[in-house]
């Protein structure tokens, strides 16, 4: 206890020096937390966005459909799979999808379109599709009076074909059996605007798309939303064991390019922070060594009256850690409001940036223990590291020499 009291008092013996050292520590810490928070926050924001937009936390496909989509690589009898997933308490919801490239026609024009057949009720609970509708209403799975299914079309298609709500839409594609697939649909809703990612997509009721593509009772993709978004990999591995006949991938695999870009960028950030903190600590090392040299005589006296070398070394370490801790504490107090503001408000980029196929439109801060703790441990680690040479120097002090110095 005495040791701590002594160390604490020693910090205030040279107030100006401690203050200046603390300032550079605080500066380094606040900068680290800020840049950490911004990168975590912005990426997490983007992840949340695409997970909810279409990816989900986990996807199930047949074979390598994810890398090489082919119409016949489909999951048969999806109801059985749905029953398993509905019974899984870690799964919040899931949806079934069918994909096919096609050409969409109106009376006068045509344009390429990506057809996505979705289980309407499940899709509504799993993705943000319903929220993206800009005109019309979320469609139902039934045939209308004239025997047409409804379709929700991307705004780009509506624009290219010059069609709107209630108009007819003709789709042509290739069926799973090799036949030419074509059918007429009624536009029930427009999705997004002309810059949305799904501007060239046609959403059909699942059953309509299965009939269209001659793909009865089969789907291409099952997208799963988990209750806990941190467990995608663990749960994917568990499901994979349960379903050996399919391929189960967490979002980290589904959005692999984005994930790699993000990891690389984050690694770069850590290296950069490491450099900043290193530079801060060259300064801190300077201070600590100075404070030891200054007290050479004092340490000599302490040793002469019986202090153990280890105790002196420990005192230097405690001093350094104390100063660092106080600085970090002040750093937390200073950075918390800043981070809070950025996590609530964030700021919009003038142009959304595409990172590995994922659009990022906002820079947002993240307020979490992780963001504060990582730089804290980094800085404390460095503090302990540099107090070692200074401590050794104090410990090796020879009383006779020391008391001769002035």
């Amino acid at each position, binding site marked *: 206890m005495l040791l701590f009291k002594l160390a604490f008092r020693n910090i205030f013996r040279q107030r100006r020096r401690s203050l200046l050292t603390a300032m550079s520590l605080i500066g380094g810490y606040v900068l680290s937390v800020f840049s950490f928070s911004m990168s975590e926050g912005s990426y997490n924001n983007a992840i949340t966005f695409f997970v909810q937009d279409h990816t989900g936390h986990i996807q199930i496909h047949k074979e390598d459909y994810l890398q090489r989509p082919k119409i016949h690589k489909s999951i048969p009898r999806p109801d059985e799979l749905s029953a398993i997933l509905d019974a899984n308490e870690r799964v919040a919801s899931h949806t079934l999808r069918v994909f096919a490239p096609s050409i969409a026609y109106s009376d006068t024009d045509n344009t390429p379109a990506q057809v996505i057949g979705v289980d309407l009720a499940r899709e509504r609970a799993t993705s943000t599709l319903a929220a993206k509708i800009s005109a019309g209403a979320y469609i139902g799975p039934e045939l209308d009076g004239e025997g047409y299914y409804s379709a929700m079309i991307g705004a780009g298609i509506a624009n290219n074909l010059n069609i709107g709500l209630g108009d007819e839409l003709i789709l042509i594609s290739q069926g799973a059996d090799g036949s030419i697939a074509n059918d007429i649909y009624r536009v029930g809703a427009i999705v997004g605007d002309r810059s949305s990612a799904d501007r060239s997509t046609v959403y059909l009721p699942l059953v309509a798309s299965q009939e269209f593509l001659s793909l009865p009772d089969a789907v291409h993709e099952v997208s799963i939303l988990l209750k806990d978004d941190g467990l995608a990999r663990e749960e994917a591995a568990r499901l994979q064991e349960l379903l050996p006949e399919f391929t189960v991938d967490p979002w980290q695999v589904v959005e692999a390019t984005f994930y790699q870009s993000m990891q690389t960028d984050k690694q770069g950030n850590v290296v950069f922070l490491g450099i900043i903190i290193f530079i801060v600590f060259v300064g801190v090392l*300077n201070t600590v060594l100075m404070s030891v040299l*200054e007290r050479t005589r004092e340490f000599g006296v302490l040793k002469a009256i019986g202090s153990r070398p280890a105790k002196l070394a420990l005192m230097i370490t405690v001093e350094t850690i104390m100063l660092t801790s106080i600085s970090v504490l002040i750093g937390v107090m200073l950075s918390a409001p800043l981070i809070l503001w950025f996590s609530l408000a964030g700021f919009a980029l003038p*142009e959304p940036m595409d990172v590995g*196929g994922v659009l990022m439109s906002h820079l947002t801060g993240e307020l979490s223990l992780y963001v504060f703790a990582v730089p804290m441990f980094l800085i404390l680690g460095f503090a302990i590291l540099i107090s070692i040479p200074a401590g050794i120097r104090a410990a090796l002090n020879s009383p006779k020499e020391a008391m001769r110095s002035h």
Partner: protein
Amino acid sequence: MQTASLAFRNLFRNTRRTVLTVMLIGFSLTALIVFDGIMRGMITLMVDNITGTLTGEAQIHRVDYRENLDVDLYLDNAAQIESQLQQDASLQAFAPRVISGAMISSSYNVSAGLVYGVDAQLEKSISKISEAVVEGAYLSGEESELLIGISMAELLEVGLGDRIVLTLSEVDNGELAQALLRVSGIVEFGLRELDENFAFTNIAAARRTLGMTDQQTHEYALRFVTPLSLTDSSSALLDELNNGEIEALNWLELNPEISLILEISRYSSLMIGAVLFLLASLGVINSMFMSIYERIYEFGVIKAIGTRPGDISKLILFEALFIALISCGMGILLGAAIGAYTSTSGIAFGEMEFSGISLNNAIFSEFHIIQFTQFPIYVVLLTVIAAIYPARFAAKIIPSDALHKSL
């Protein structure tokens, strides 16, 4: 002069402290030089990726064409535009293209993609298509040739000589048209979007399939004698071409998100510089104070015997100046060494893809004269400014207080 030599000698009274302070400032400068070099390298890589791969330095389209790549919005006076382009001395090369979305089907699979009809000869001086051929041969102008991206080839399960059917719609009337082509080459750009979605054929064949005359073109890609750079991307030719019908834009305008990335990187360089020097300045102030405290007795004595406060200030400022100069020497040497290493062997950053530009190649850092002129000058100035506070403190030392010496 005497003050200067005194200051210089003072630095070596406590060599360890001087070394640590020099390291602090020197490393900051090194970090800044290296960081700036990497940023410049990254930007060059991005710019080369954009202007060198397919886009060229500028493009001409019909107004509104880019929004949806609507095949009906074509330029219909090729001869007139081309003669204007040929006459312009600032232009090195140009290439016409017709572009259409298409269903691209093989016997095994089908994919949606963008088909570019290009002029085999002219395209060579604009884009990297001919260099990207990894299998088979580049276009020679023969009828049924088709180059497809490597990822698309995998998806369609086709190799050289296999048949591909393009299904697209004719311009103006929207009639469905099909063309049977054979894979004559496979291209790999290393950019996901291009390798997955793009196919290239001869412009004559593409025009015929789309029902276009040889006066009708969707796009001209341009290359200038003096490359349109980040800092100077204006061109009289582009200004002249722009009118209500035609839109001529340089690569920065074609890729607005790039200017954003550049803005961010410039901004972050500035911020990093500011923070580094804030930290370094705190270190300088701290270290100067330590050296003053150590010599407080001395200052008391020289003041008592008549040294003016101004001279003492000057002494401290000179010490700071020398520290800054030595630091700059060290920082420049280290920065140049790291820069030289990273500019020849590159830094592998792992895979990244921003704005459709993949940075999976190593980044080669770049030297720039300002790294070795402006940066060190800022460092010296900031160090000396930081030393003003301790210098004033030293000047105000009161001899009678200073001469009381404690344990």
